[in-house]
Structure formats: structure tokens, C-alpha cells
């Protein structure tokens, strides 16, 4: 028991150190990024089209990573079919946009502003419905049936999209209106993070964390575990659908290839890299993993090697991901400034007395 205590303490100290170093860096990047985006919003064209596209992708990836983190990191389920829900959202919203026609009573710009959030919502709801259909039968059972079911679902969606007339098979759907601006992407990313953050820090989130920690004990505490597993999974699917819709209206072209298993794994990597259970980690990892392949573009063929190698090294030295389960929030903000003014940072776990009653 003693050893358990010391590793616990060391872990807590490491987290604390990590937080105090990462926090200012992360904050600086975020402020810079926001100044940049704000200038862009004001109409300055500092950022080229190319970088703007990367920023939009980063925001979409934030939605994907944070929503998958709710399922895999917070609730401790193992879903590997996030791209499938993305596909549902992408196809549903794209087809709606293409078939809505022109509203005569408003200008095209006004129509876009009203129509776009509605079709995204519809895409999200369709994905959530798909989540319910898969979630209810598989999540009633204990154990990892979900992994297999979600993997299968991702493939089924891809095959269905390949073979249906309405989805136009492998040719995909083209000339989707280009509605996804930096504005919309950022707005939806922020809204997603805020909503999921609030879920996690509510009573519902606590039930989900309890399920992750020990499902049987959670059940014994009177938590309706099936309900919360399905809830978490469905909410995650919803936001994946919204992200899919944003992507469709950003690329203006979608085909089944964009939503294959590799895409699911890419999202999973963001969550694992950032730290299962850390929303902050997911956000940062989504940004890093969107930018990294672009930054490494000049290395051409070696790009993927370096990319994969970095991940392998990280998983060896920091298997819990960059952030573990830690969050960068206001408490860290406070403790950071306190530590700078000379006060001791109180690491959360207290030191135990020398012979504190170990059995």
C-alpha cells in the first residue's frame, strides 16, 4: 500500500509540474490564435486561404476529439467508429443543403445564416439517432462489445454510402455550398467545448466518471449505468455528426473515402495523445495533429514516419497522454500565479504521515 501512495504522489507532482509549464505556453498560443482569428473576423486578411483552411480543420477536429473524449475518456467506453457518425452528419446535412432550394423571401446570405445551423443540427440529430440504435443493444451489456459494434458501424456506413443512389456512391457528393467559415467553425467548436465541459462537471458527468472508474461499484451506488453510457455515447455521436456537417460544407465535396477507419483512428489518436479524460488535452492535441502534417509537408515521404514515430515515443514516455486527466482551468490559473509570487503550490493529494495506519 505504501508504494501505491508514493506513486500516486509522484504522479500528482508530475501533473502539477506539467500544468505549471504547459499553462503559460498554452495560454500564449491561445491568445495569439484568438487575436489572429479576431483580426480575420474584422476583415483583415492576414491569414492566407491556406492557413484559414487549416484553422477550420483544427476547429472541426476539436469538436471530434472532445466529443470522442466524452465517450472514451470520461465514460471509459471504447468507441472506434467516430468517423461513421461524422459520415451520417456529413451526408444528411449536405443532402439537406443541396435540396433545400432557394428561399424567395430572404437574400441568399440570410438564407445561408438561417439554413446552415439547421442542417448541421439535423446532421447531428441523425448521427445521435444512429448512436442510439447502436448504443442501446451493445451498452446494456458489460464489457467491450461497443468497440466491435462501432468498428462494424463505421464500415457499414461507408458501404451503404458507396451503394446508395442518393449518396452517389464512390463519386461522392459535389458542389455542397461552402458555408463553413472561420466564424461558424470557431463558434461550433466553442459551443461544443462549453457544452461538454459543463456535462462533465455536472452530476451526469460525475456518474459517467464513476462508470469509467468502476462500473460495478457505480451500479451499486445507484447510478443507472446503461442510461449514462447510452447518453454519453449519443451526445458524442451528435457532435461527431455536427463536425461531419461542418467538414462537408468546408470541403464542398464528400465521398465515403473521407470517413474510413483511418479517420476514426486519427480522432482516437487525438484523444489518446491529449489524455483520455482531459478536454484541454483533446483541444490541444486536435490543434497539434491538424497542424503537424502540414508543418511536416516539406519532408515529403518522411512526414508520416516522423508523425508516427513521435506518437510512438510519446506513448512510451507518457502513455497517459500529454495531459493525463488534468484540465487547464481557473484553479490552475490561480495556482500558477500564486506559485510565481512565491507561495507553495498545494499539490492536490496531501502527504501522508509516516506510519499512517497502513494495513
Amino acid at each position, binding site marked *: *500500500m*505504501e508504494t*501505491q*501512495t508514493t506513486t*500516486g*504522489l509522484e504522479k*500528482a507532482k508530475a501533473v502539477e509540474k506539467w500544468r505549471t509549464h504547459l499553462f503559460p505556453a498554452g495560454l500564449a498560443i491561445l491568445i495569439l490564435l484568438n487575436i489572429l482569428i479576431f483580426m480575420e473576423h474584422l476583415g483583415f486578411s492576414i491569414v492566407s486561404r491556406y492557413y484559414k483552411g487549416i484553422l477550420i480543420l483544427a476547429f472541426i477536429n476539436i469538436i471530434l476529439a472532445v466529443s470522442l473524449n466524452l465517450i472514451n475518456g470520461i465514460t471509459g467506453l471504447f468507441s472506434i467508429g467516430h468517423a461513421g457518425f461524422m459520415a451520417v452528419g456529413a451526408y444528411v446535412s449536405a443532402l439537406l443543403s443541396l435540396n433545400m432550394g432557394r428561399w424567395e423571401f430572404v437574400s441568399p446570405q440570410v438564407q445561408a445564416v438561417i439554413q446552415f445551423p439547421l442542417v448541421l443540427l439535423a446532421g447531428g440529430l441523425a448521427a445521435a439517432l444512429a448512436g442510439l440504435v447502436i448504443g442501446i443493444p451493445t451498452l446494456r451489456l458489460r464489457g467491450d462489445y461497443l468497440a466491435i459494434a462501432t468498428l462494424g458501424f463505421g464500415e457499414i456506413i461507408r458501404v451503404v454510402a458507396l451503394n446508395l443512389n442518393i449518396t452517389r456512391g464512390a463519386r461522392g457528393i459535389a458542389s455542397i455550398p461552402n458555408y463553413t467559415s472561420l466564424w461558424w467553425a470557431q463558434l461550433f467548436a466553442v459551443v461544443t467545448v462549453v457544452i461538454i465541459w459543463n456535462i462533465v462537471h455536472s*452530476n451526469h458527468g*460525475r*456518474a459517467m*466518471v*464513476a462508470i469509467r*472508474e*468502476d462500473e*460495478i*461499484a*457505480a*451500479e*451499486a*451506488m*445507484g*447510478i*443507472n449505468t446503461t442510461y449514462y453510457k447510452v447518453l454519453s455515447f449519443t451526445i458524442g455521436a451528435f457532435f461527431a455528426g455536427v463536425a461531419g456537417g461542418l467538414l462537408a460544407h468546408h470541403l464542398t465535396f464528400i465521398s465515403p473515402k473521407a470517413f474510413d477507419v483511418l479517420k476514426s483512428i486519427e480522432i482516437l489518436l487525438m484523444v489518446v495523445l491529449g489524455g483520455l479524460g482531459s478536454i484541454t488535452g483533446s483541444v490541444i492535441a486536435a490543434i497539434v495533429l491538424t497542424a503537424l502534417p502540414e508543418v511536416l509537408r516539406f519532408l515529403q515521404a518522411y512526414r508520416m514516419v516522423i508523425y508516427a514515430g513521435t506518437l510512438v515515443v510519446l506513448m512510451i514516455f507518457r502513455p497517459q497522454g500529454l495531459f493525463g*486527466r488534468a484540465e487547464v482551468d481557473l484553479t490552475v490559473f490561480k495556482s500558477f500565479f500564486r506559485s510565481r509570487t512565491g507561495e507553495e503550490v498545494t499539490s*492536490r*493529494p*496531501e502527504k*501522508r504521515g509516516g506510519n*499512517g*495506519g*497502513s*494495513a
Partner: protein
Amino acid sequence: MLTVENLHVYYGAIHAIQGISFSVRQGEIVTLIGANGAGKSTILKTISGLLQPREGKILLEGEEISTLAPHQIVARGISQVPEGRRVFPELSVLENLELGAYQRKGKEHLKELEWVFELFPRLEERKNQPAGTLSGGEQQMLAIGRGLMAKPRLLLLDEPSMGLAPLLVKEIFAIIQEINAAGTTILLVEQNAHMALSIAQTGYVLETGEIVLSGSAAELVRNEEVRKAYLGL
């Protein structure tokens, strides 16, 4: 208060509980003693709804509860302290306790929290520490405290003495008596027959899924078979 009638529980083809009947009266400490594998945990898990019986009845004050889900059973006032403590390791002691009061609204649970900290001052000292870093004894205290947070009428305890030093077992059993004295009925499952019979009023002896002996704790302590098989005398 609780009546179990002709209970049969299976794990697939394994007939783990073979027609057991017993009852727990309001205000009592009742103990089920038996060796490893006798079926003690299976009975508790069936009462708390984690397992479904194939046959038989479980009545809580006359209401059949064996078909209910665990969260419905907690809502009816039964809470379980599972075997091997099963605390939530990465959550703090306080968060663990709050999860015990999961079904209660608002600040209703603050009175129990105060009481739990009174019973186990060590938990209050360590309230912000992750539960996984507690010693075995402290984890057992936390598991019991967490069970009390639901303010149960009936508390199910599954081998609270497991893996603990004798002195600590004494300490914990004294607290179980204190909890009972405060009005909580207790069903205690134990391998440590000596300790269990020393605090219980009624006992049942369980062997391979069947009750082979029952009576008042005082009678059982005097019983020759119990003395030989379970008390090592």
C-alpha cells in the same frame, strides 16, 4: 424487514445458490458466514440487483425487489459495500463519498457526510486525496462511508475484514456496531466467523450454496460444528 425465500442463482450452468431462505429483522445485525466460494457475495449481489435470481423471492418490507434494477433498489433504501472495497481510485475521498449519495438531492447528504467523518476521522484528513492512494484499511473505511451516504435502511457488507490486520478489523467492526446502534439494519457477510458472530445477533452458516445451520449468534458460537469448522477451536 428483508425476507429471502427459496433463492436460486446461476452463473450459466453453475448453480451457485441452491434454494436459500433467510430473513433480516429491522435493527438487527445478521451475518452469513461461510468459506471462500460458499456463495456469500452471490447472495449480496442478488439482493442489490447486480444479479438476477432464476427462482425465489426477495421481499423488502413485503415488496418483491428481485426483478428491480440496482438503481431502483438503492432508491428503496438498500446499499451495498462491495467485496474488495471497489472505491473509485482516481477520484478523491470526498468525491467517492458524494457518489455514495448520488441519488439524493441538493444538500441532503451533508448530514451523513458529517457523520461519516465523525465515524472515520481519517477520511476527513484525507478528503482531497485520490482514493487509490489510501491504505487497505482506509479504503475499507471509505467503502463503508460511501455506502452510508445513501442513508440506507439496510446496509449490505461484503467481507469488510478481508486482507486487514487484526487490530484494524476490530476497529472497523466496532464502527459497524456503532452504525447499527444509530439505527441502520446490517447484513454482514464474512469468512471471519469469530468477528462476525461477536457483533451479530443472528447468524446463518453457508456451505456450497446452501444454508446448513442457523440460529442466534450466541448459539452458533457454542455449536460444536461451528467451533471446529469456522472458529478453529
